């Protein structure tokens, strides 16, 4: 077989990327995921800006992960200033991050990924084929948007989240109404797990390591500082991230690539990585759904990131319903009004699990709280090297099976979409 597979501006992903695969005979010669996103140079933009503006600027790295970038930046600044926030503020931040999970996973699974498995070019025909799924998907996405709006003031690029707390909060009855809507959405989320689990995917295992947040007692997404490399068996604090993660530039990508520093091994960070690290801490219904779908650690098939995201939707709904009820009942200590703090110089790293995986913001501030240095690592920039490895593996597998060129092309596109890349985020 001789094939030169090129997909320019691969569709239904966030941002601009080209796929380039050259096959000669039985051999896969070249595999490239070209990230052709324009450089926006955020690390330079935040330089010299006050801590009051930083999260507002860096949230613009990404429309869909804006809540994650905001919270990550606030955590970095609070680490520098030594700000202790209340339990209530932490609960609200978790709610904000989970709101973006519902938005992201709902949009990714139904609008971006599902058409692949249904043999469609976009989600719109689903309205005719399976109106119940279509309406459910929109309702799920809408719930995520409304949750982000309620907590952050806007569906994307939150307004109310500031250093030390929140400038605004919704009232008790609104929390209760959200809790009810979350619970009512769970049956559709469970159906989503079944739907995505029913799609046939190539049997493959990623060769890279897996990286995700670890906490001893919960499925943590924004309140632990510990990162875990699953295979390497290494845990480390976010402040030490550059000791363990190496970023490097390649000509075909506007995004810096990343690998595990000591072993020089590529890795994946994603919902799938989180499931591998924290499976045992999923909420009850999410765990049952995962078990029923056969998704349990160790699970290394990157295509199953779709199922992992579906399980996380169930988990997020259960968790947010509980959070909302507890917020309504005033169970969390303290107020969400911004805690007082003193501006001081220093360096600190904020870390959260964005919907697509590990996001790190390292900030150095001067005595006036202005940024001297910033370094930002997004999930997709960490994933691209590993994605290329998986694309090669998949292409080799399909060539060996004698699959035709259009099918190889489609499967590779599906793999890219299963990673849920955010290329605009990766070139920040």
């Amino acid at each position: 077989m001789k094939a030169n597979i090129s997909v320019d501006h691969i569709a239904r992903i966030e941002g601009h990327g080209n796929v380039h695969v050259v096959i000669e005979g039985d051999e896969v010669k070249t595999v490239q995921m070209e990230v052709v996103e324009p450089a926006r140079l955020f690390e330079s933009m935040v330089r010299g800006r006050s801590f009051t503006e930083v999260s507002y600027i860096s949230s613009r790295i990404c429309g869909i992960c804006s809540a994650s970038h905001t919270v990550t930046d606030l955590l970095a600044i609070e680490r520098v200033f030594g700000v202790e926030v209340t339990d209530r503020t932490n609960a609200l931040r978790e709610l904000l991050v989970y709101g973006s999970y519902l938005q992201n996973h709902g949009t990714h699974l139904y609008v971006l990924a599902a058409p692949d498995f249904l043999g469609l070019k976009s989600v719109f025909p689903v309205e005719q084929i399976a109106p119940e799924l279509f309406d459910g998907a929109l309702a799920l996405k809408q719930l995520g948007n409304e949750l982000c709006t309620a907590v952050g003031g806007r569906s994307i690029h939150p307004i109310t989240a500031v250093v030390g707390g929140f400038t605004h909060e919704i009232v008790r009855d609104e929390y209760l109404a959200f809790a009810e809507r979350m619970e009512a959405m769970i049956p559709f989320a469970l159906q989503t797990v079944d739907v995505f689990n029913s799609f046939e995917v190539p049997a493959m295992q990623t060769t890279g390591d897996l990286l995700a947040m670890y906490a001893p007692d919960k499925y943590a997404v924004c309140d632990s500082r510990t990162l875990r490399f699953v295979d390497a068996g290494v845990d480390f604090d976010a402040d030490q991230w550059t000791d363990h993660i190496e970023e490097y530039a390649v000509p075909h990508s506007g995004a810096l690539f990343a690998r595990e520093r000591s072993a020089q091994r590529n890795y994946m960070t994603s919902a799938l990585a989180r499931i591998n690290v924290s499976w045992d801490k999923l909420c009850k219904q999410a765990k049952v759904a995962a078990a029923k779908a056969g998704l349990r650690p160790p699970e290394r098939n990157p295509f199953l990131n779709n199922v992992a995201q579906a399980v996380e939707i169930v988990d997020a709904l259960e968790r947010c319903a509980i959070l909302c009820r507890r917020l309504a009942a005033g169970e969390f200590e303290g107020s969400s009004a911004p805690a007082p703090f003193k501006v001081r110089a220093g360096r600190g790293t904020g870390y959260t699990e964005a919907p697509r995986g590990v996001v790190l913001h390292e900030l150095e501030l001067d005595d006036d709280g202005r940024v001297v240095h910033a370094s930002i690592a997004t999930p997709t920039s960490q994933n691209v090297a590993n994605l290329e490895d998986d694309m090669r593996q998949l292409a080799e597998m399909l060539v060996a099976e004698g699959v035709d060129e259009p099918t190889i092309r489609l499967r590779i596109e599906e793999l890219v979409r299963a990673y849920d890349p955010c290329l605009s985020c990766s070139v920040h």
Partner: protein
Amino acid sequence: MGAFSLITDAEARVPRVVVVGLASCFGCQLQITNAEEHLMEILGQIDVRYWQLVTSEDGVEDFDVAIIEGAVTTRESEETCKFLRAHAAHVMAIGACACTGGVTGMASDYLGARTDLVYDGEAPDACGEMIEPRPVSAVIDVDSEVRCCPIDPYDFVAALQRALYGSNRLPEPRTMCADCKRNETECFFEQGVLCLGLVTQAACGARCVNLGRPCNGCAGMSSAANLEAARLSCETYGVPVESFDKALEMFNQVKLTDSETL
């Protein structure tokens, strides 16, 4: 703004629309899909010919309306804009990046030093041939704009409706302060806190201020903005003028850089 004409006058057909993203966070495109309840009603009135974010249909050359998100930051995207202008009867810029350069436009100052800082030298080839970030209107004529970062989905719906069916509504250059007066919200300046409502185009109903946060100017400067008077106000309220000028860069850097060089 181009000459006013009705898209639907041209031919009796469903208006053909393309949505194109340049340098941006993709958030404004997402906001279109965030009009969930009305999404299918909107899509039912148009024929979406190209929208990389949501469909794998191939690109096309026949369309009536081009919706552009993002700032122009490369020679390639400049060409894209010209191509869209040459084929579309109506070009709509959506979001701060497309309308004013937005946060992306912050890099228009000292661009070379910035790529050095982020990439230790030149940006990779994949980033394209980089130019100072600029709004779409700096490259081609734009017929309509939806301002703010991000756009409000319903503002977009209203703008699309005006593009498709026409409107005799004129642009209103009033600044955001007028909206706060209308809302009877407490003024940040009275607490000695800087707010950009003084010079920012009113477009959002003072969303941030209503939630306890000063205006960051995402709608861009109003054509009626009086910078000198605003600086005087800062002095009156004990807010450092430098912090006003600095804050203004966040969404208006391109305009500020241009006015310096003029």
